[in-house]
């Protein structure tokens, strides 16, 4: 145990090894300076043909697809040239996601539900992708892509019902808040276990290809989750079978309290994971809705023309806490969100629309107000169906539904036992 012991295997002519453990640049109290973060100029990164071989543009995994420049102009080969109507629709969706997040975060703080997760600062990642995909394409999201549902026009009341586990919750109160499942909107059931959706998306895409379908799959996970084995299994399968799937890695720099260095970001980019698997890789400014749109549309075209999978790293920043259970002030500098060099995705798209004369501050403020009202109205409607903890919203015996398609004897017995218990207890639940 003594540290002055020199074991026989230590070779005196060699320097001792040392273990490297990553450390983020800034901790609480530190002044933030992001000048080290290399940000290529908008328009600078080339756009290969979608029919090009993946190994002919591996440089893109180390650059950054950016369309919106500092003056709010859309520039370069990746400019998707969207109509002003489309741009406004995208802006509206992103602002709606933010308004929804604000409201539901507050609802959790008011004790109306157990848990909530915002995607503040990352709205472009999900919203722009939803606009670039076909509605029929299948999404396998993580917990931070509520923007897909909002952009696909899914009912906010339905989402809130799930958050409240109330009588109208289509998931019958069985799942943690925000772990939505919306098959009708091409949105796979969210898992609490990280990265499990990745190989599932590949399987869906392989099935679509095997059946001669035209639909593709897209999946999302955080940069921290790329460490999970499921991520790597997915990449291998997608590469082997050239599956029509889009892998989105949302690099928001943090995984709860662990900075991206603990997922390997100090050595290479996340887009570069694609290079080793021989699949197409793009690194994109995730706070630039036009870049996200263009990259997604490009990847979708590759997938639809049997060119196989694309991995897109969305370089962005988690502007708020991991979830309602988290306090980022404990582990990162409070100055980070505002110092983030890629700005705010909503502000950037807004500035672009203003710069091209298709929007103004007054309309934006009016829209924000209108969206807040819409969210408030939806909340009122959802709360009429109850909030978590205030009474029992699901029939007690529904606890046993859905374990299997048909209930085996042992579950029927347990169900009967539970009803008998509740009756015996005389608790208010039993009388429901």
């Amino acid at each position, binding site marked *: *145990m003594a*540290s002055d012991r020199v074991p026989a295997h230590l070779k005196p002519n060699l320097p001792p090894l*040392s*273990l490297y*453990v990553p*450390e983020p640049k800034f*901790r609480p109290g530190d002044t933030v300076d992001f000048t080290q973060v290399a940000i290529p100029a908008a328009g600078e990164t080339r756009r290969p043909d979608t029919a090009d071989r993946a190994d002919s543009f591996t440089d893109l995994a180390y650059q950054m697809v950016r369309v919106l420049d500092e003056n709010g102009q859309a520039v370069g080969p990746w400019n998707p040239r969207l109509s002003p109507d489309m741009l406004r629709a995208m802006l509206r969706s992103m602002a709606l996601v933010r308004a929804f997040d604000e409201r539901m975060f507050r609802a959790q703080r008011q004790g109306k539900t*157990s*848990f909530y997760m915002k995607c503040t600062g990352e709205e472009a990642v999900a919203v722009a992708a939803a606009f670039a995909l076909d509605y029929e394409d299948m999404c396998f999201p993580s917990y931070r892509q509520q923007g897909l549902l909002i952009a696909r026009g899914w009912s906010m009341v339905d989402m809130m019902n799930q958050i409240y*586990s109330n009588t109208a*919750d289509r998931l019958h*109160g*069985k*799942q*943690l*808040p925000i*772990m939505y499942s919306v098959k009708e909107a091409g949105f796979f059931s969210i*898992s*609490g*276990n*990280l990265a499990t959706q990745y190989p599932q998306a590949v399987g869906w895409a392989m099935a679509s290809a095997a059946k001669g379908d035209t639909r593709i799959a897209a999946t999302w996970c955080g940069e*921290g*989750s790329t*460490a*999970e*084995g*499921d991520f790597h299994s997915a990449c291998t399968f997608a590469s082997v079978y050239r599956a029509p799937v889009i892998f989105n890695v949302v690099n928001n720099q943090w*995984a*709860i*309290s*662990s900075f991206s260095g*603990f*997922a*390997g970001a100090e050595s290479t980019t996340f887009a570069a994971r694609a290079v080793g698997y021989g699949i197409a890789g793009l690194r994109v400014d995730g706070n630039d809705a036009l870049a996200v749109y263009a990259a997604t549309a490009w990847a979708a075209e590759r997938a639809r023309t049997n060119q196989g999978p694309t991995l897109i790293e969305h370089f962005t920043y988690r502007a708020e806490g991991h979830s309602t*259970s988290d306090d980022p002030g*404990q*582990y990162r500098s409070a100055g980070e969100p505002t110092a983030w060099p890629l700005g705010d995705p909503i502000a950037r798209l807004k500035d672009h629309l203003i710069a091209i004369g298709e929007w103004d501050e007054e309309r934006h403020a009016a829209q924000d107000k209108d969206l807040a009202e819409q969210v408030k109205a939806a909340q009122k409607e959802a709360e009429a169906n109850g909030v*978590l903890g205030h009474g*029992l*919203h*699901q029939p*007690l015996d*529904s*606890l*046993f539904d859905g*374990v299997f398609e048909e209930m085996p004897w*042992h*579950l029927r017995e*347990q169900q009967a*036992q*539970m009803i*008998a*218990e*509740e009756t*015996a*207890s005389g*608790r208010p*639940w039993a009388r429901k």
Partner: protein
Amino acid sequence: MTDTPESTRMNMIQAINSAMDVMMDRDPDIVVMGEDVGYFGGVFRATAGLQSKYGKTRVFDTPITECGIIGVAVGMGAYGLRPVPEIQFADYIYPALDQLVSEAARLRYRSAGEFTAPITVRSPFGGGIFGGQTHSQSPEGIFTHVSGIKTVIPSTPYDAKGLLIAAIEDNDPTIFFEPKRIYNGPFDGHWDRPTQNWSQHPAGDVPTGYYKIELGKAKVVRPGEALTILAYGTMVHVALSVIAEAGVDAEVIDLRTLVPLDIETIEASVQKTGRCMIVHEATRTSGFGAELSALVQERCFYHLEAPIERVTGFDTPYPHSLEWAYFPGPVRIGEALKKIMKDA
């Protein structure tokens, strides 16, 4: 057993933290690793302060790969270190299953003792915090089924520290499941009443220094004559409150270690009382209660005056909103108590 008489009030998190602190101070080969355990000190704060005290090469954050965390711990163990990895929630231990089952548990056997896996896997488990199906599970039965892994579950701060120290010192792989519902206080099963704090409980008085509680030794937490209740973790406190309310003179045994099991204490008790109730929060089918029931039947059959009762979670995933209907609380235990005492 203690080398210092000093003790202080601790909740279970603090006791667990103290166990690691004491052990890291004694043994430079102990390393603590896991998601968010380093600078931040863990999502439940169990490793708070350890990194600043022992440095980043002994207390470090890991990539988010449970398979990697356990595999790396096995490799560090092969070198000669004594890793104490944390799996953030027991619900996230499944990606590590191959490294635990095929590797950690088998290493000693397959290498004839050349290599061992002296690792202690800490992980918060159990429900009652509205955590939904991925922050609530009790998967201990999966691990007790695997030969070569020890499974330990404390029910008080005092036991948590003493057992964790014993687990860390043990040369075999140990799963140390921490009942997160009782991190702050001995929850009695009444979700609609305030929970007592550990500062008001005698077992919240914890020595600050080194002591250990031998693995494989159960504790009779309440001697009694009418029946034997076998429980562990949170359910020890729930069972105690139920029998107190019912006025039944039960003998309550806190198993503390599931593998290896203290069969002698169980046998002696059931042979004395003639009745045995088993309580766990985990699902029923193939749960650890099934093993306990079989053992008691094999060894105490001629002493039994009533069928063995198993009170467990239902065979469903842990539901979010109906979690108190799922939880084997006072009502379910109370009904089983009536049944087992019917002819007494």
